[in-house]
């Protein structure tokens, strides 16, 4: 699903990455307000829905290789965080919808969840 379609679906404001809306393709997403869970369970290219708006969420996206960040519940990061997103080349959207609805709409539109193994590890992990 194209980022442009996601923006439309959840009525989001684009904070970073207007130029990537028609090129970034989203297949997988996760919703979390826990940074370690994102690091542990999210695959490369995952879209993250979160209520966190600190600089650390951009760092997390950068480290974990996430595709896009959607800020939910009407939260907006401050300008310095937006600048970090621009520097890292990570598209950032913001919606007034709560986490549950945002995730539900994405899932209903065909975006998949992260795949976990029986032991809770990311499927396909080594070690």
């Amino acid at each position, binding site marked *: 699903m194209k980022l442009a379609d996601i923006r439309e679906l959840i009525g989001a404001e684009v904070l970073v990455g207007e130029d990537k809306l028609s090129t970034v393709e989203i297949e997988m997403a996760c919703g979390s307000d826990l940074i370690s869970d994102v690091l542990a369970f999210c695959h490369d290219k995952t879209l993250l829905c979160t209520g966190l708006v600190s600089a650390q969420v951009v760092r997390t996206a950068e480290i974990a290789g996430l595709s896009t960040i959607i800020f939910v519940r009407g939260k907006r990061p401050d300008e310095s965080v937006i600048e970090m997103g621009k520097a890292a080349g990570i598209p950032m959207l913001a919606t007034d919808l709560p986490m549950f609805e945002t995730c539900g709409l994405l899932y209903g539109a065909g975006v998949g969840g992260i795949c976990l193994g029986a032991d809770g590890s990311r499927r396909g992990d080594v*070690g």
Partner: protein
Amino acid sequence: MYRGGNDGQAIDRAGAAFSGAASPHSEPVLEMSFRVDRYDFAAAGEAASKIKQVLRQLGMAPELVRRAAVAAYEAEMNLVIHSEGGQILLRVDTEKVTLVACDGGPGMPDVSLAMREGYSTAPDEIREMGFGAGMGLPNMKRCSDSFSIESEVGRGTTVTAAIRIA
């Protein structure tokens, strides 16, 4: 061999910390050290970000780079949140990428408890930032092929994580 760091003094300590681990078959090709300050949330993650960039530039496999970056980031956040400050050492040789996070205190009274998923001593204000899920050390272990913790209350903690280069 490349040696560098974000502060000059840390380099000597990096060399000292690594000298015991070196084997004849794994001469370091790169060593770097990064100082991490307690509660410096503005800079937190910069070391891990740099480590990711360096490993990528070395041409390491993307999944290896990702595992090392996640381990480094968890180590860095542990230093920021729980330690009195410390450093992260990156050592790359022909066989593995090694990360050593060491601090001067306060040390952990019960390492096995700290390794339990979900256990955290982080205060509420840290949890509100999205940390303190009790997954930091388990995440580091999950990303590593070998992992060890040495800790002594009042002296400090050294966490060592190594990832094999396939």
